[in-house]
């Protein structure tokens, strides 16, 4: 198997090489990396891949230890739309 095809974000099918290329091209933060590639924005809400995407920001962490690289947002688990506001299905 081609090493370039290692999937990092399963939900959005983003590969390691895609993340490496984007990080190198734009010299971006973990958050920007997420916005550019959609890694971490899938159905699981980044629960599976978040630490791996954060790891790309590791060099910048010294300056930024007191800020979570990828912000946590509710809902922290998938919730059916009906439960969030609409009538119960």
């Amino acid at each position, binding site marked *: 198997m081609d090493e370039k095809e*290692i999937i990092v974000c399963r939900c959005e099918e983003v590969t390691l090489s895609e993340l490496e290329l984007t990080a190198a091209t734009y010299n971006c933060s973990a958050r920007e990396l997420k916005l550019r590639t959609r890694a971490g924005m899938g159905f699981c809400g980044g*629960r599976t*891949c978040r630490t791996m995407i954060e790891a790309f920001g590791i060099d910048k962490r010294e300056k930024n230890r007191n800020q979570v690289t990828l912000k946590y*947002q509710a*809902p*922290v688990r998938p919730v059916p739309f009906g439960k969030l506001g609409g009538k*119960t299905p």
Partner: protein
Amino acid sequence: MYKAVSGSPLLLEIGVETMYDIIVIGAGPAGLAAASTAAREGLHVLVIDEYMKPGGRLLGQLYQESNGNWWNGLEESVKLNEQAVNEGVKIILQTVVYDIERQDSSWIIYTENIVYTSKQLLLATGAAESPVPLPGWTLPGVMSVGAAQVMTNVHRVKPGDKGMIIGVNVLSAAIAMELQLAGIDVVAMALPPLNQLTHQHSRPKEVMEALLHASHLAPSKFLRIGSKFMTNPFMRQLGIRLYPKSGISMWGIPIQLRKAVTEIYGTNQVEGVIIRTIDINGSPVSGTEESIACDFVCIAGGLYPLAELAGVADCPFYYVDELGGYVPIHNEKMETPIEGLYVAGNITGIEGAKIAISQGVVAGYSMAIASGKQGLVENLQDSIKKVHETRKQAAIRFHPKVDIGRNIIHKQWEARQVPSTNDATII
């Protein structure tokens, strides 16, 4: 917007329960211990957990301590649960908390069907496993080492007949032994391949160093003698160079610190792995590929504190390697800078279950005092001492320098304290 304001039609529709004094999120050892402690002081306590059984990660634990006693997490969980129920704690399972919000000096806790409210809130949500990406890791039959532990020890289902473990650390070593006790063949443990996301798990030298601190776990002469012998860096280098090609056997399982799994293969599910010899920096040596047949693969990338709800509540964090990652800032009383918000257990740093229990007791007393209960200051202080004692005697150390990590986070707390004239929380 899904977030409802109190009194809105949504809240009425999904139902709001009466106000609790204390809500605890997470029925692991920390959450259950905190709940019992506070309920014993006469407080109205609710525990919410998304899993189907109380006990959290304690449920899967089964290992022998250095004094020869067995630590059976399943039994310990039953005890902690019974104790909480006897003290009058209400426990709700299979219920996910997906959001929390502070409003008018109380907490609003959102679950799928009911919105709960409380005056104090304890986050005892534990830890999660870090993934390690490698080619083929999305095939069915690949799981985290913790998933294999839960299948085997909690559900009593074999994850497969013959497994390969990728990632050598304290947790995967303990779980390898548990799998073997359950009659599952663990073919070998080896390192993950070196890439930008796996570095510290893929360099034999670093893995060896981390393992040496856990050498009491290993009934292997090499590692045990090693831990005394290799206290200086030069000897460590030598140790890893001389590391036998066939690995070192621990409970009959070959541990390969000089080999990495570079690929997991299979058509519809795991059929085996490709393994290669690596140099001391983790780079593969060409021409050394072998394939090993197996029907499941466990990935062990270590643990990190699961603090998502603290993030949602805007609690400040600090990154501490020794504690496993981003940790909500807190003090020894388990208070966070957010009023009415407490943390205990692995959310504050990765350590064993006994430490989680002792931190839970501290949080229980802190919340009872904040709820207006008198005469508990001494209990609180004693319980903080107990945390330190428990840490000293811990059987499993996930990070050798956890004490340093604890100091870093407490310094962060102190740095945030602006002197105030009417600070009521100072004892």
